[in-house]
């Protein structure tokens, strides 16, 4: 059975259609500065969503990413405020993120609890730790070197976009061409059969949540650097944006099906919608409605195409 063009590239087509419509409605939409603008804005959600894709591929979910972003951001900023160098702060931030994710993974596998519950707990606890550490106030006045990560450019390309691209490429190749990637799909596609096939399911799950934590830490660093300050309320609701991008990108919430390339398009769709609504001066009241309709509509169209394909194969 062959997939038709639309079934394979459905979400990409929807994205291009959206861009086409916006370019007619707003003359600046397709300008280079605006496009750079959009990709820079989606880099934050994009990095998280790629990690979330891995988690959802295993049939799990991580609700704690937003809080992990805030906590790592706060610690990274705090270390610098206490006179530590930017380099050390970044390393500590990445390790802290990985550590938080690892804790999620260990409780899920060793404690046998559902990821939803465990990461919900981490969501609250990490947010609380952030507030304790910052005393509820933003930490600002960070070094120039550090600010370069979020605000700098390589040529004319913003650094966050380069980071996102690297994360995307690495995760794409890892998922597609390595034993680890193959086993992640298997664990999500059928946990029981993967154990029967001799896969160390628990180890893989801990690894996936650790990677998610590492990417949350990375996001925390990029976000803090981009804003020039660590805000204790940063990252609230990030988990939902990330999950939305994953779902729009065609990854199954049941696990075992999907790809990071789809997730990137999902993140782009969200970014383009936000950007377009701002450019078109749509009233704030209507923006939320439009966003909701486009998100559900995109997934609906994609789903329809797949269902049709499934019927044929039956």
């Amino acid at each position, binding site marked *: 059975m062959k997939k038709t063009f639309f079934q394979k590239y459905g979400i990409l087509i929807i994205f291009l259609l959206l861009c086409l419509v916006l370019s007619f409605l*707003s003359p*600046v939409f397709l*300008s280079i*500065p*605006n496009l750079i*603008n959009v990709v*820079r*804005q989606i880099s*934050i959600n994009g990095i998280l969503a790629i990690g979330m894709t891995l988690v959802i591929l295993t049939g799990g979910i991580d609700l704690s990413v937003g809080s992990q972003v805030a906590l790592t951001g706060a610690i990274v900023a705090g270390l610098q405020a206490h006179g530590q160098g930017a380099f050390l702060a970044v390393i500590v931030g990445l390790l802290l993120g990985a550590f938080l994710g690892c804790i999620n993974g260990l409780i899920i596998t060793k404690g046998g609890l559902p990821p939803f519950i465990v990461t919900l707990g981490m969501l609250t606890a990490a947010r609380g730790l952030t*507030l304790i550490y910052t*005393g*509820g*106030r*933003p930490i*600002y*006045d960070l070094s120039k070197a550090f600010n370069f990560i979020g*605000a700098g450019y390589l040529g004319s390309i913003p650094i966050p976009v380069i980071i996102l691209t690297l994360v995307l490429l690495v995760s794409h190749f890892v998922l597609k061409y390595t034993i680890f990637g193959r086993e992640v799909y298997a664990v999500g596609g059928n946990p029981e059969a993967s154990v029967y096939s001799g896969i160390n399911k628990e180890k893989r799950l801990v690894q996936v949540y650790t990677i998610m934590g590492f990417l949350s830490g990375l996001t925390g660093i990029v*976000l803090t650097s*981009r*804003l*020039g*300050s660590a*805000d*204790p*309320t*940063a990252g*609230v609701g990030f988990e939902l944006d990330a999950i939305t991008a994953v779902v729009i990108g065609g990854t199954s919430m049941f696990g075992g099906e999907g790809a990071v390339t789809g997730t990137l398009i999902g993140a782009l769709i969200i970014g383009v919608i*936000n*950007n377009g609504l*701002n*450019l078109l*001066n749509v009233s*704030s*009241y209507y*923006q939320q409605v439009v966003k909701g309709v486009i998100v559900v509509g995109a997934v609906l169209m994609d789903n329809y195409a797949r269902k049709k394909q499934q019927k044929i194969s039956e």
Partner: protein
Amino acid sequence: MKTMRGKNLKIFVGCLLVVVLGIGSIIYIPAIKAKRKPVIAMAFCTLNIPFFVEMENGVREEAKKADVKLIVTNAEDSAAKQMAQVEDLLIQKPDVLLLAPVDSDVLVPAVEAAHKANIPVISIDRSVNSDKLITFIGVDDVEGGRTAARYVIERLNGKGNVIMLEGVIGSSAQRDRAQGFEEVIAKNPKIKMLTKQTANFNRTEGMNVVENLLQAYPKIDAIFAQNDEMALGAIRAIKAAGREDEIIVVGFDADPEAKDAVRNGNMAATIEGSPYKLGITGVKSAMQYLEGKKLPEKILLPLDLVTKESLAK
């Protein structure tokens, strides 16, 4: 294997119990000892943003001075949570309840319940739509919006393009600040409001929205943000686009970081809502009430414009 796991679980639960009881007793034993002093309960809508953290500092400072015992709760912006917290506070029978409500309407039953329990309620920052309040202490957000507009008009010499960044749509701060700002702008036909967009009082969103708007509008003269968080995000975006000489940014709330930004010229001005003063006034009013003094129905603190010049003084 199974039994091992069960045993581990038992040990784990046991440890958890010990920890919880331990923390519980640490918190409550001093509470039992320290009776007799007047008790003031302060129910915050949130302590996760600088504005209310400043207010809490004011409350604590004044409570220390007045030698009263203080109980503080944080509802994390959830009305339902705040309802439950107020109910818990009432059981502890404070002499006065200070309430910074999450919502003016939803918290009405909480005030009624306190009234029934003979505990006086003073609301701070946001009012509650109930006649059972002793008094309401707040700032005049509408007037604050007007002040910001007047300042913008003055800086632009009465002519130019303006953008407003709005807070969470439907919140009272968003409504009142927008009302005051738009009212004054409307009287000046040469000032054009290009657009108003929400960034939900959030810095990241403020930055993203302004980045987008900078693409859409080649000529912007001023941005008014309904709080400092959004204003700071806006400044970040403007700087990145290299248009800081062209656009002035006015914030609201006078957070410490915003004041720094005003001092070094990145932000043109902010409006001093002075949460610290609100906190101090709250405890002071409570003490006056306990001494038997009559309080006015509404205490509105003045809102000051904070500029580089006013800070230099």
